[in-house]
């Protein structure tokens, strides 16, 4: 019966979201908080079940594929569910503080966030190409209203651009799915792997459409322009959720498809090189942009554009250690980025602005949040002993083994550039000033929950440097040869 | 039943054609409305009658009659509202 955990981990958060919607409660709503706790519990149970039993499958409605839809939990899915649960729970704590006293916005936040949680779990567990399309739309349509919660003019145009791009991306994806269904007569990931012709125009076009659609959704250069305004303009807990989890969903699917039905077309040398090159471009361009941003949250948002690139470096490498490195990078970045956004949000909350150049003298009033920012930055820069270091080390190792020097160079330069944009912030923040940081209004100190959740996430990003062994064991072997 | 059915269909299409030409060529809202509602209602009626003959089933004929009645009703109300709106606009224009 443990396979019933799969649908439960989708529907516990979803129905909790529905309950919050019905209850209309505010920031400290017991319904919302128990929903978060239940969702966390069911996710952890699922991860433990995968840890002890290996992969889990659940044929929905009792119909085996190709007729029905299959849910599938393997190490990769379990790690993403774990990331969602841990980051989500801590961000929820932050949200309790952030939205205190704002009953209506808080209710919308909890409703949408719990629905998003269920949608993300649905996406990670789906083993059906069309169902993935539905879950992608679910994730997008939960994420965009969350951006809108900020209520500002910028957030409206950011939401609109986000929506247009996201719709465009998922329709390209759906076009590819249509062709694949035409060729194989099935939507099940495993069956597609068995039936897909080895080559030919239709396979090529289908792969191109699917990959292009997912790249648009993942905000990979050159489709990245919608991400910074959307992520930078949203309330801090939302930015954290979007940057840590939502953009990962599309990249996750690229890895999932490589590991499953599309391994052959995605391993074609020029496709792999192209994806790797896009990743490298994202790392360099995103980091340079991050260095030039006047506002702290935009620095962090462009850093997301850059950090997503590392996962794409997997494709030209395509060996076991690169697989582990790419997935671990997803985890490490998720935790660290959530910490960065929450810490940046605390500063914004305190000062009423987040203009980098005016942060001087902030060390004292915001010591803990700044500390969280600094600690999480260690992981973003890829310095030991952090999760980011493990991930980059694994990527570097496999690049060195294969003599792919341009990847080695990209990873090293990316680390230096990350140090550049992080230290730029630090320099201003730790600079002594006579009068403390400039403020736009009377300072409102962040609540303890907001500070400690950011700090906990930051510490976790370092802890990830020591937990590589159990987590990579959970991930399991690199899936080669389909299936 | 085929020949009269097809003949009715063709005549119906002629009415549609006339209505469309009227819509495009007539000078103002009222005469355009006149052309399109009158001609198209008759055209639709003839089409329905033609299809009913071709299908030679009473059930389908009854359904088609219902379709025609509802379409006429909708066209009447729509035409009335458009004409009224246009008249009110014109009166307002004159007053200003």
């Amino acid at each position, binding site marked *: 019966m443990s396979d*019933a955990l799969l*649908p439960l981990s989708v*529907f516990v958060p979803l*129905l909790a979201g*529905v309950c919050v*919607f*019905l209850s*209309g409660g505010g920031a400290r709503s017991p319904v919302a908080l128990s929903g978060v706790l239940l969702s966390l519990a069911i996710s952890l149970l699922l991860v433990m079940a995968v840890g002890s039993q290996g992969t889990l499958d*659940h*044929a*929905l*409605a*009792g*119909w085996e594929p*190709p*007729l*029905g*839809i299959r849910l599938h939990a393997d190490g990769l899915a379990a790690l993403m569910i774990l990331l969602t649960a841990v980051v989500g729970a801590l961000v929820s704590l932050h949200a309790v503080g952030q939205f205190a006293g704002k009953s209506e916005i808080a209710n*919308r936040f909890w*409703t*949408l966030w719990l*629905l998003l949680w269920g*949608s993300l779990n*649905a996406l990670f567990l789906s083993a059906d190409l*069309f*169902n993935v399309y*539905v*879950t992608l*739309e*679910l994730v997008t*349509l939960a994420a965009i*209203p969350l951006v*809108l*919660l900020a*209520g500002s003019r910028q957030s*409206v145009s950011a*939401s609109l651009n986000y929506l247009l791009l996201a719709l465009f991306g998922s329709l390209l994806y759906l*076009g590819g799915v249509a*062709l694949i*269904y*035409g*060729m*194989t*007569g*099935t*939507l099940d990931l495993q069956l597609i792997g068995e*039936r897909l*012709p080895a080559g*030919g*125009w*239709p396979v090529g*076009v*289908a792969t*191109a459409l699917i990959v292009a659609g997912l790249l648009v959704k993942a905000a990979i250069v050159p489709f990245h322009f919608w991400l910074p305004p959307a992520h930078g303009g949203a309330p801090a807990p939302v930015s954290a959720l979007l940057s840590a989890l939502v953009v990962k969903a599309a990249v996750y699917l690229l890895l999932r498809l490589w590991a499953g039905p599309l391994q052959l077309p995605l391993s074609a040398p020029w496709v792999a090189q192209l994806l790797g090159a896009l990743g490298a471009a994202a790392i360099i361009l995103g980091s340079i942009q991050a260095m030039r941003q006047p506002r702290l949250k935009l620095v962090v948002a462009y850093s997301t554009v850059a950090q997503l690139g590392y996962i794409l470096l997997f494709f030209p490498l395509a060996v076991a250690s690169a697989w582990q490195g790419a997935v671990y990078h997803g985890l490490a970045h998720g935790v660290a980025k959530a910490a960065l956004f929450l810490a940046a949000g605390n500063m914004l909350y305190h000062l009423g602005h987040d203009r980098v150049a005016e942060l001087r003298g902030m060390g004292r009033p915001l010591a803990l949040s700044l500390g969280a920012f600094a600690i999480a930055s260690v992981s973003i820069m890829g310095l030991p002993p952090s999760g980011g270091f493990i991930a980059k080390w694994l990527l570097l190792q496999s690049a060195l083994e294969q003599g792919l020097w341009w990847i080695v160079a990209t990873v090293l330069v990316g680390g230096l550039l990350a140090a550049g944009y992080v230290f730029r912030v630090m320099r201003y923040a730790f600079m002594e000033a006579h009068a403390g940081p400039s403020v736009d209004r009377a300072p409102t100190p962040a609540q303890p929950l907001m500070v400690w959740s950011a700090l906990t996430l930051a510490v976790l990003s370092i802890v990830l440097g020591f937990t590589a062994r159990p987590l990579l064991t959970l991930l399991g072997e690199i899936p080669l040869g389909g299936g | 039943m085929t020949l009269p059915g097809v003949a009715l269909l063709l005549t119906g299409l002629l009415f549609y054609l006339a209505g469309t030409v009227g819509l495009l060529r007539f000078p103002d809202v009222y005469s355009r409305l006149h052309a399109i509602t009158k001609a198209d209602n008759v055209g639709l009626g003839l089409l329905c009658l033609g299809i009913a003959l071709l299908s030679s089933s009473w059930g389908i004929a009854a359904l088609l009659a219902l379709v025609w009645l509802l379409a006429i*009703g*909708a066209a*009447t109300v729509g035409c*009335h*509202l458009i004409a009224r*709106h246009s008249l009110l606009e014109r009166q307002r224009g004159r007053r200003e």
Partner: protein
Amino acid sequence: MIVVDTLAALILVVLAWRCLLLTDLFRSIVLFIVFGLLMALAWARLDAPDLALAEAAIGAGLLGVLLLGTWRAMGSPDGDHRQPGRALQVIAAGGGMVLAVLVGIALHQLPVSEQAAGALALERLDEAATQQPVTAVLLNFRSYDTLLEMGVLLMALLGTWLARVPLMESLSGDDASRGTELLPVALRVFVPVMLLVGAYLIWAGTHSPGGAFQGGAVLAAAGVLLALAGRLRGDTGDSLPLRMLLVLGLTVFSLAGLLLIPLQGAFMAYPPTLIYPVMLIVEYSLAVSIAITLVLLYTGSRGLRRGPA
């Protein structure tokens, strides 16, 4: 009949072309509505009556009214004369052509699969307690997709609420709909007929083209008609009963699935004796939620109240 198909396909493309290239916004919208209607015709020609129904009711009908309403709410702008840069135009034209050619070649050369899921679905219709293949796929074989789709509807509505620009709250009834004798009579005839057709379509989904989406869309169309005539007004607050109706489909569908897990061992699997009643209940609750969501997506308001008769 090849002539009809060729003509339909050609007009579709020309309409889309004109719709996307005109600078006049109003004309673009009207062309888009016509495009939707022609799409419905194409669906009918392609043996997809379910889609023809859905497209006509939701795609062309509801979306059309919403587009026109939005155009008016924006102050009836005549269009947009900003021109993108020459380089962007070249990229767009080149990219569009490459995309079209690639998809065209792929569709043309697509090998036919021997063992399609659809063939299996057609074979095993009896086990799904329905004679209508599309309903069987939507509500049984792939019911999970349909369930998640209800989440999409709910979140689109939440997003619309957060945008805070209702279409119908501020709109005072149109001049032309006031003080005319004909409109109340028409409403008295049309609204009951539409409700009847909607309810029939939902039920019909079990054996012929129709189902929760088509029926729900027709019910929503009746609601939109009432809203247009001023009988139904947007309201500024949402009430608990309304919220319950909005999530009725999602809740009933997922609870039916979850509660029967111990019995059948799989999510959303129903015992053979219960399939038909469960499916009927699910269809009607889905349709109610769909109808109300669509009406609210149209009005953009938080709630609904009766307008002056």
